[in-house]
């Protein structure tokens, strides 16, 4: 019961923000590139449901366009993490204890010692800040997450008799990894994917907040918060709505992840009777 409620609330919140991002490509309430100093720092009204910022831009429109940045950065970062992490995890598991396995394990440990913020700092120190750097930093940090998850569950699958049966049928480890292991870890990957997606949104917001992420004029929720900070005592709503947007998106993705886990994990399903 609770599981499916989580799933629906999560799906609705996630879909809501995804939709807002998509709509922003064709329509936003106000153009965010036009500054309107006369209308600056207005509290929420009928014309501007979420108010305006210090340049008189409509905050609702800013949040809609900012959703694009957040979602794009997080999706690409998850894809990088899965694209490298899953094959590495599968390869490590199929050669358990080998040099390759050892190397992948050590590499993972090493990346875990560099939180995405430090990776972003290193990249920025070289190439200057940008949204692309944020994507790379978050993506690199996602690789060991997926590699470990894949390796861990693949290892237990390799012990199962159906893998032995496939080997008796003459199948090699690459083929077995794709045909038998991957479909059986897919559920876990989907669940972890939504969680990393939400962590990606949080990380992108943090990086933009400290100036290591998307640069002006690309709008982003993190920078909206950074901009609002000096004016927080005058206009708290400037800080409130972008923050709420982050919280609701991340909450939605986490609920979706929990719901999917309950739905997809047969162990839990049996548990519920």
């Amino acid at each position, binding site marked *: 019961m609770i599981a499916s409620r989580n799933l629906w609330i999560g799906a609705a919140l996630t879909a809501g923000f995804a939709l807002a991002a998509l709509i922003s490509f064709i329509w936003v309430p106000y153009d965010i590139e036009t500054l309107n100093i006369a209308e600056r720092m207005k509290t929420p009204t009928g014309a501007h449901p979420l108010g305006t910022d210090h340049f008189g831009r409509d905050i609702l429109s800013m949040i809609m366009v900012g959703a694009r940045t957040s979602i794009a950065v997080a999706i690409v970062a998850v894809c990088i993490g899965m694209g490298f992490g899953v094959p590495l995890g599968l390869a490590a598991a199929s050669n358990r204890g080998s040099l390759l396995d050892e190397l992948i394990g*050590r590499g993972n*440990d*090493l990346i*875990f*010692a*560099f*939180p*995405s*913020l*430090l990776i972003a*700092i*290193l*990249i*920025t*120190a*070289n190439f200057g800040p940008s949204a692309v750097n944020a994507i790379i930093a978050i993506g690199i940090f996602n690789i060991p997450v997926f590699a470990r998850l894949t390796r861990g569950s693949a290892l237990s699958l390799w012990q199962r008799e159906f893998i032995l049966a496939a080997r008796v049928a003459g199948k090699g480890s690459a083929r077995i990894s794709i045909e038998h292991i991957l479909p059986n870890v897919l559920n876990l990957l989907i669940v972890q994917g939504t969680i990393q997606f*939400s962590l990606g949104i*949080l990380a992108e*917001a*943090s990086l933009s*907040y*400290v*100036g290591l992420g998307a640069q002006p004029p690309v709008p982003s929720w993190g920078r909206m*918060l950074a901009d*609002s*900070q000096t004016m*927080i*005592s005058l206009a*708290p709503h400037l*800080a409130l709505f972008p*923050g709420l947007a*982050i*919280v*609701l998106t*991340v*909450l939605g993705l*986490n*609920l979706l992840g929990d719901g999917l886990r309950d739905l997809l994990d047969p162990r839990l399903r049996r548990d519920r009777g």
Partner: protein
Amino acid sequence: MVRYVLKRLISLAISLVVASVVIFAAIEVIPGDPAAFMLGINAQPDTIAALREQLGLDVPMFQRYFNWVGGLLVGDFGTSYTYRTEVADMIGERLWISLPLALIALTLSTLIAFPVGILAASRRGSVADVTVMGVTQLGVAVPNFWFAMLMVLVFSINLRWFSAGGFPGWDEGLFAGLKALTLPAISLALPQASILARVMRSALLDTLGEDFMRTARAKGLTRKQALWRHALRNAMIPVLTIIGLQFSFLMAGAIIIENVFFLPGLGRLIFQSISQRDLIVVESVVMLLVFAVILINFAVDIAYAVVDPRLRRSQ
């Protein structure tokens, strides 16, 4: 046990070496000429040459790496280009803000998370459990810097209990220093506590389903006794893993939170250095942070062995 510790020590050393190579490569090799980069596009060739000499860039790359690492080992982090002072001194000063901040936050999040997680697990499905799950679900979703801004709004601007930022220095007394770190530590700790409480709860629930818990109940232990005597220590194994991981997030989080509260810690230092292109400082601070993370993970590995006899004695 000795063998286990030795093995971990060797892997600690390897991690440090590889991390230093990665950082060195990222800062001093990939960008080409660090001196030209630091001085910007308008620099005169002779200024660049002077800086190259000053940074020791005129020697081969391998020698430079060993000079740098050799310096780190004896506490010589080089000289900041912008401030013309020893990097070690700059770090030392700021470490006394960042380190207490991270430690207070870690302690706080553990102190909150453990009882809350245990309560939720031991009364699974109760009102308390549902509340804990709801609140922590929200806590996980809140970005710590935004939470910090809200705290400033409420406790500094409206209630005026705390100052909105800045640090008086430890010279002003322990109380003044701790007071300045209170809001930053809370805003770091609460989101982390939410994660940790959830992990604690699910690790305990997993353990409660184990066969040996049934054995304990069959001996005549009450539910509560079985939980405290048998489940808790077993649940610590996954919880320790998360605490280790969290420390690295706390370090990163501290860097960001220092920005919200204008604390002159390592985080401020690193962003100033980036904007001033002072690569020497960036390099050393990043290395220091990575060293701290690796060290904490070593400590977590040792803690595993303390908790789990299977790691202490191999058959």
